[in-house]
């Protein structure tokens, strides 16, 4: 009996070792072909699948040879953390500038002025924050003021971990500041009431989407515009998009992670890849996935779907991401004040 058992054990180990060798070899070959790792945030999954396909085609037509673009997705803050911890991204395409700033501050992975290296503050597409409601809008939600009514359940992720949630928070704040003519006590009161109506804080935008669309919790869903349209597509006839009277211009930026790209010898490819996002082809894809194209002519084509609404901006209304982060989301910021006082 025992020889049989021994044989089995040995065979398994040998199999494992050969499997190891087999996978090790092709991966070494793969490294010879150029490969790029794009570390991105949650809602861009589908968009970058299309972008990568288009970019590869264009690259091959121009230069020949094959390239490979790998994707990794997750909450924007979490992804930034992974890159700092050693996830060797060649490019990052995150939800907000603050999450790329930390790559410079914490790990020196790119230059301090990364945001000035590409057009439009390195944000090739924009988005905004809208409301997703149940079909027919049974609670009659039209604007930010309706969200604090008793009995209205609001779904938003946690601003501490999610980029989208921070845009949500700032959009609500901007509306309240405008509505209460900058009376800070009233603004804080509004924000406190708003978060009283939030039954769950998911860690990322995708988690919140699932909470609202799939688990059917909540009456209104504060969401990236593209995510709100995506659930309309994925769960037809169940939800609809409402535009509030005022929202925020969300600029999800992109950057080459200089240190990693240099190490991999992919700097030039990474730059071309990010520049590709500004081409007509990519801008059209952005619109198709419900991001707002930067190119004005192309943006115009999507105006019916993505209408022009009044928006505040981070730089004009909140100073900068660094400042907004400090005032609102760092320990002891306004979010801690209103949420712990719940």
């Amino acid at each position, binding site marked *: *009996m*025992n020889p049989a*058992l*021994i044989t089995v*054990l040995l065979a*398994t*180990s040998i*199999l*494992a070792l050969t*499997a*190891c*060798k087999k*996978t*090790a*070899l092709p*991966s*070494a070959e793969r*490294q010879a072909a150029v490969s790029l*790792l794009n570390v991105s945030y*949650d809602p861009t*999954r*589908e968009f970058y699948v299309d972008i990568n396909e288009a970019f590869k085609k264009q690259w091959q037509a121009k230069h020949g040879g094959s390239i490979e673009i*790998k*994707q*990794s*997705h*997750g909450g924007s803050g979490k992804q930034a953390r*992974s890159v*700092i*911890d*050693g*996830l*060797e991204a060649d490019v990052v395409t995150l939800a907000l500038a603050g999450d790329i700033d930390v790559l410079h501050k*914490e*790990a020196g992975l790119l230059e301090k002025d990364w945001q000035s290296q590409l057009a439009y503050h390195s944000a090739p597409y924009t988005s905004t924050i809208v409301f997703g409601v149940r079909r027919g809008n049974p609670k009659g939600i039209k604007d930010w003021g309706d969200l604090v009514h008793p009995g209205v359940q609001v779904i938003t992720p946690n601003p501490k971990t999610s980029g989208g949630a921070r845009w949500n928070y700032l959009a609500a704040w901007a509306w309240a500041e405008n509505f209460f003519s900058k009376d800070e006590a009233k603004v804080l009161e509004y924000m406190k009431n708003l978060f009283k109506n939030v039954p769950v804080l998911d860690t990322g935008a*995708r988690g919140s989407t*699932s909470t609202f669309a799939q688990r059917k919790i909540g009456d209104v869903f504060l969401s990236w515009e593209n995510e709100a349209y995506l659930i309309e597509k*994925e769960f037809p006839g169940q939800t609809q998009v409402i535009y509030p009277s005022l929202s925020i211009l969300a600029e999800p930026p992109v950057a080459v992670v200089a240190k990693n790209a240099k190490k991999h010898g992919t700097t030039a490819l990474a730059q071309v890849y990010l520049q590709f996002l500004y081409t007509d082809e990519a801008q059209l894809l952005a619109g198709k996935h419900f991001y707002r194209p930067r190119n004005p002519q192309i943006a115009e084509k999507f105006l019916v779907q993505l209408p022009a609404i009044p928006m505040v901006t981070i730089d004009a209304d909140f100073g900068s991401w660094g400042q907004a982060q400090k005032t609102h989301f760092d320990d002891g910021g306004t979010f801690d004040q209103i949420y712990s006082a719940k």
Partner: protein
Amino acid sequence: MANLQATTESKPVRALLIGLALIVLSLFLFLPLLAVFAEALRRGWEVFFASLTEDAARSAIKLTLLTAGIAVPLNTLFGLSAAWLVTKYRFKGRAFLISLIDLPFAVSPVIAGLVWIMIFGAKGWLPPSRMTELLAPLAALAAQAASNESIGGLFEGAAAWLADPKIVFAVPGIIIATVFVTFPFVARELIPLMESQGSDQEEAAVTLGAGGWRIFWRVTLPNIKWGLLYGVLLCNARAMGEFGAVSVVSGHIRGQTNTLPLHIEVLYNEYQFSAAFACATLLALLALLTLGLKSVVEQLSGPPQN
């Protein structure tokens, strides 16, 4: 009385208890399993097979098999030697060692992943830059071996890795995390078994003049083979199904560092429910296979011990 009954409960009580057990079983075990298969096949066999054979799924399956293929034999060896050490010898710190073996069970999988980031992450104790320095002599050797015409091919992979030794957010980290999490399965299965068997037979073998290896192959191993096999099965099931620890160290690069459980999560989050559940059926089938093998093992191991 021809029929001796061990229980004194009346028929209705028995029926009630059995009924309750059946309801709970079907609600909590059978229904979810059914849901997995039903959802997987909702869009037909074509979608089902397509989602198992697309690139990302194939790479996830490969990575899962590779991980289990390394973690299970390693932990089998470790479990055997640990159980042998702990049950056949008495030494200081033995009780402590036994509790230490259980550590991976006691620790949350998230922590089991994070510790490896703390050690091998870019800001950890042994960041890749430091590893490169430490491994430089080995890397040079491997590079030399790889440039050899006749045997070079064998060393290419090793040389490539040693030149840029990535652990976390790469395949080695996934394997290490899995080994850590599945550490105790074999040892835990063997220790009570070997404890209860005592060392009498081994001692008898020694008096008859058998050496260490011979005792192990001829006396110890035949006594524990079913326990060992059972431990290996459980270890394998966990190695293939582990989510938490692997999720932390993976970096979630599609087609590269996603194992099957991580791939399922990605698909689910992309609203590709049928594809997610198609991959889930693979894991479910594996669980069923493990259960089947387990009951075979139990049946085979039952009679001789009685």
